[in-house]
């Protein structure tokens, strides 16, 4: 009877884990279901880890949306990053990367940028601005728009390249208890809100527009 009870406990635990695994897989796959609205020709999919992906178009830009779980920073709660990439030719030759609250473990950000640029005075001080030669030009152009974008504390990174730009924002933060006890990542998020995605997309389009069609104000900044 004693051995039987042990076996029963093991079987129940296994069944419970299988059920949880299925639920988890369904959760990952459906995270972007509410975000197709702003895109034309939206295509939902899944990445190799089972997280939802979304592709589509907005105007001239091809939009690629991904979710990146990040459990790599020692002594920081797990993060779920929303990564929105706009692929379109931009009016810049340089690469510019603006990273908020760097911890050194941002594997999703470029690691080999040679220049470190001074942080504009109006921005939060714990910001890392890096780039390639000539990155000061897009930085000067984009500073007013970036100031607004970076005022949202959820924004983690803005990357500008000649082929497009990418915004990384916090979609959710892991629950503390789950992380502490088993290093699990349980994000209190059923689906990504369409408003958050739309806001991020709008920020990206604003940045692209500012670079491609400088207004008089930004043209003045670039010239300066």
């Amino acid at each position, binding site marked *: 009877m004693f051995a039987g009870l042990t076996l029963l406990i093991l079987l129940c635990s296994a069944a419970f884990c299988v059920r949880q695994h299925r639920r988890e897989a369904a959760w990952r796959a459906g995270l972007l279901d509410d975000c197709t609205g702003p895109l034309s020709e939206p295509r939902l999919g899944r990445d190799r880890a089972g997280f939802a992906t979304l592709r589509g178009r907005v105007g001239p830009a091809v939009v690629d949306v991904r979710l990146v779980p990040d459990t790599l920073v020692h*002594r920081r709660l797990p993060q779920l990053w929303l990564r929105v990439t706009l692929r379109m030719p931009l009016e810049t030759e340089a690469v510019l990367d603006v990273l908020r609250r760097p911890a050194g473990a941002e594997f999703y950000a470029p690691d080999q940028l040679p220049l470190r640029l001074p942080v504009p005075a109006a921005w939060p001080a714990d910001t890392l601005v890096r780039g390639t030669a000539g990155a000061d030009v897009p930085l000067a152009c984009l500073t007013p728009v970036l100031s607004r974008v970076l*005022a949202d504390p959820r924004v983690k990174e803005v990357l500008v390249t000649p082929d497009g730009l990418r915004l990384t924002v916090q979609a959710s933060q892991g629950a503390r208890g789950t992380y502490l006890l088993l290093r699990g990542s349980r994000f209190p998020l059923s689906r990504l809100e369409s408003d958050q995605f739309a806001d991020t997309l709008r920020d990206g389009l604003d940045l692209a527009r500012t670079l491609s069609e400088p207004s008089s104000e930004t043209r003045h900044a670039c010239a300066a």
Partner: protein
Amino acid sequence: MTTVQPMAERVSAPPAGGAIPAAAQAPAANRRVALLRVLGPGHVWALGVGIVLVGEFMGWNFAVGKGGAVAALAACWLAGILYTCVAMIDSEITSTVAAAGGQYAQAKHIIGPLAAFNVGLYLVMAYTMLEVSNAIVTGDLIEAFAQSLGLEGAIDKRAFMVLTVVALAFLNYRGVLATLTLNLVITAAAFAAIVVLFVATQPWAPGAVLQHEALLGALPYGSLGILAAMHFGLWFYLGIEGTTQAAEEVRSPARALPLGTMTGMMTLLIAATLTWYVCSGLMPWEYLGQAVTPLYDAARLTGSRWLELFLFLGTLFATVASANGCINDASRAWFAMGRDRYMPVWFGAVHPTYRTPYRAIVFFVPIAILFAVSTPLDQTITFSILSGLLGYTLMALSIVLFRRKWPLGSIQRGYVHPLHPLPAVLLLVLCVVTYLAVFLGYGTQLLAMMAFYITASAWFVLHRYKYVRRGDQFTMPWPKPRGY
């Protein structure tokens, strides 16, 4: 027993330094991020106790072997004073150095790269040796349980030690994200196991089950035994200081952090005393002082099969969960050192699919297995405690430097601990006492460990430091330290 309380990504931190134009702040106000500043002292308490409680199932009893049961209890109280100082100092530093990375990042900002390198190594060594200890306990536990089922000789505990390390490393390699919701069940089961055992031994009727009168002798090695027991006395609380890392999420750091941490320590003290009371009333100190699974052994001695099963599951859950946390933490600390170029950058790689520091995880598997199958439990625990102790010693120096470089008023502090520099001095004195205690029982291990850290430091200064990217590491918006 894990030694971590994570910080939140600082999404709601006010923009320090530069002011953002009012117009620019409006959207942020509309899209206020949740989750911040939600914890009270009760949360800090619960989380602190939850992660340290595992230590009741193994390790603490080696203090009994060093000086007898009474000496172990005295050492438990003395270690409590040490941890009070640690908690006070860590509360101030953590609530001010709001950079994720814990003591590693703090040492980087306050002392410098060499200290950060050493703290990183302490963390990795403490976690890895703790993982090894948990694997040893799991192997011993399964072997003992198999014997109870009549399978004597059929099971080799070393196989289960290896299996534990490999299976958990595989899970960490794959990056199991939120697939388990058993965590609360596990903690509750572990806690309930201790309480049920306590009740089952009828502590209200001395002599019925518990035989303190016959078993609880005087100090077998005199007062020197209390000093020697200080070594393993640290095990009662190791990791509780991690509660201070929740500084960014508590509503009132100045109140919640010390209150939550202190009440957490009191709870652990009570839990440790209950554990001590039950075990010392069932086993002679000579046996208790070298048992691998003291609570499980106590349950077996009661003669109840149900209680034995309950404590088997409680111990198994607790040690496996702890080992899992250790693999996770050691690999992240090693990964961070790789990213900072303190270690070869090869270790800073991330798995393209699973998003885990897979090279750091795999690197420690053979090391953990080698220690698990070849080293006694008391020695692996000693290595873990020593690494923790070295970290506490640096913490005492760190707070002195912190107050000197950035005096009160020069930067905004979330919490200012009282009576400075008394806690730092007391902490240093107690650390020295504990080094002496370790030297008395494990002098060779102490010297070997010191030689290892000194050699590693020399390698870092003479060779590795030239690869470190110095400028990118310092991100705190602080003024220049005084004197620089």
